[in-house]
């Protein structure tokens, strides 16, 4: 006599008997869509997908209604719609990334990083000219914006988490509102205060000031989130050992939150590296390399893209796409760094 060993069953698993109506329904929907598309003047992939959405919704609702009731039908419809919404989020991003690489790769070469556009006409072949001036300009702009905005953002977040003054909730509110001001307004403001009122000229520094305004709220908000995660025990321990608040913050809290704070800075950089509108008002947009960030017209990668797109010749648009590819690579590198940092540590 062989002993029967009890097999563990998983009652929550969907078995074939329960699933076949759905599978059959899905196949039926695709076939029906194909039939409709070939029978009617609807054309192409787009027509197919739009029809598929409608057919799939109706078929799913019908099957659920027949098998169960009206509520189940609503459930099926909403499930299909929610899945479609999820799809709609992925499709544009996939298309954007694919097109950037496809169109940008043609103009990409090592040579483009060593020359500028000073002596290159807009319809010169792609082997001439480059984006050196834009890369250097972007580097200056982002670096200066970081130097200006990080201390201010960090101090704001320290005020919100460590001092917790009377105005803390008001300031939190205003910082949130500040993160929503349009980038063009930041550009206009810097133009008004730095160029009209103080009489300065177009330069990389002017552009950096505009970007700093956009960067401060990002840095402040993410740093605040990070500092909030530092356990209160650490603060109390620091104070109990006789440290002043300044020593506690400088030697315990900031080191404890270090990787998170770096993440917040890089997030701020990723936020402003691709900004275009404020730079259009503040940088002048040079074609030649300008190594002095404090005077003279200069350019940045988004500005380069904009300028070449505006020229509208076939080759300049090709250049614009190459610029977009470089810009996206830079933004995605910064983005990946923040991901790696926040995954590795920063959780207490």
């Amino acid at each position, binding site marked *: 006599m062989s002993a029967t060993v009890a097999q563990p069953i998983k009652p929550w698993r969907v078995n074939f008997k329960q699933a076949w109506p759905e599978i059959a329904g899905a196949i039926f929907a695709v076939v029906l869509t194909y039939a409709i598309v070939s029978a009617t003047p609807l054309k192409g992939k787009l027509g197919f997908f739009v029809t598929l959405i409608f057919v799939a919704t109706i078929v799913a609702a019908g099957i659920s209604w027949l098998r169960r009731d009206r509520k189940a039908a609503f459930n099926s419809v909403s499930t299909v719609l929610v899945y479609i919404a999820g799809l709609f*989020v992925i499709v544009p991003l996939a298309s954007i990334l694919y097109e950037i690489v496809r169109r940008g790769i043609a103009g990409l070469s090592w040579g483009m990083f060593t020359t500028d556009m000073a002596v290159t006409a807009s319809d010169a072949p792609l082997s001439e000219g480059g984006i050196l001036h834009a890369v250097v300009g972007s580097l200056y702009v982002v670096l200066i914006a970081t130097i200006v905005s990080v201390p201010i953002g960090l*101090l704001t977040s320290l005020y919100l988490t460590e001092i917790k003054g009377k105005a803390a909730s008001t*300031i939190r509110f205003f910082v949130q509102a500040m993160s929503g*001001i349009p980038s063009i307004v930041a550009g206009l403001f810097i*133009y008004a205060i730095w160029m009209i009122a103080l009489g300065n000229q177009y330069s990389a520094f002017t552009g950096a000031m505009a970007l700093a305004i956009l960067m401060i709220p990002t840095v402040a908000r993410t740093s605040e989130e990070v500092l909030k995660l530092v356990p209160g025990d650490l603060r109390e321990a620091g104070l109990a050992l006789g440290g002043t608040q300044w020593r506690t*913050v400088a030697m315990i809290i900031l080191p404890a939150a270090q990787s998170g704070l770096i993440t917040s800075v890089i997030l701020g950089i990723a936020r402003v590296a*691709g900004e275009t509108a404020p730079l259009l008002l503040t940088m002048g947009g040079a074609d030649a390399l300008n190594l002095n960030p404090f005077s003279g017209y200069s350019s940045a990668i988004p500005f380069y893209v904009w300028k070449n797109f505006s020229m509208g010749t076939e080759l300049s648009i090709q250049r614009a796409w190459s610029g977009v590819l470089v*810009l996206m690579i830079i*933004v995605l590198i910064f983005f990946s760094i923040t991901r790696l940092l926040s995954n590795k540590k920063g959780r207490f």
Partner: protein
Amino acid sequence: MNTAARTLPPKRVITTKPRFSDKVFRAVVTSGGFSSLVILGLISIFLLINGLNTFKSEGFKFITGFEWYGPQLDAGLPAQYGIGAMLYGTIVIGLIALFFGFPIAVGAALFLSYYAPEWLKKPMVLVVDVMAAIPSIVFGLWGYFILMPHAEYWAKLIHKYLGFIPIFDMPAPAFSRSPFIAGLVLAIMILPIITSISREIFAQTPLDRIQAAYALGATKWSMIKSVVFPYGRGGVIGGAMLGLGRAIGETVAVYTVLNIVYDINIEVLLSAGGSVASMIVNKFGEASPEEVKALMAAGFVLFLVTLFINFLADLIINRTARKG
């Protein structure tokens, strides 16, 4: 044996008086904390000062007027600066963006919170975050070269089958660079912010309520309808408003895609629209000093509108988050 009196160390002074270093620290941090207030104040003051002349000379016409030109000396006409048409255009493309973006974003947030299989959640969140990091000029170029041909075809279909509705009517067969297409690009741009805020709010729905709904035999949709939506309504609306604020302030992507025309057109599929932010970039290049001041005034209006929308949105979101 030495019996000299033990010398006691001086009594430690225990005081609540802050040390000098702490005073400096608190002063520096507090002044840093107030800097964002100062910057916001400076922005409004400087834009207002520069725009004041325009506000004075144009009066209420600045908000309602349709004309924008400098003084025309040969015709003896004074300058006319009015952003009425642009404000109208901004609202139109903002609403189009919300019309398409909001349902998809909320659907995607629901998908992420309740429908997606475990293995798909992380990549999907990554997709949303990457989308938020894409610069607006990239969206602009993509919208112009890739989305536009498709969107023109969709616009033609809408016109063909729904043309009897006035807003889908077409006085001239120009389907490219319309508010409709600009709205579509903006819809994609505001997806990430609405999705991530909705998802955060949905995550705060009390688990016991969800389980109670399931235990009563609710389907997933009934559960969402009766538990998740009532709890998250405010947050989702706030997210939508933040998205609207983003859409209103968007400059470069809209300018790339939209054909800016100084007129109010009710037809959204027609190749003529407006946007305050894009108009500023459009006019800034060849503006006279006086016109720049008028643009500052326009920027001030834009600043106030977006600030107001963001305030309201934050208020609603914070209240919902606290309740949840």
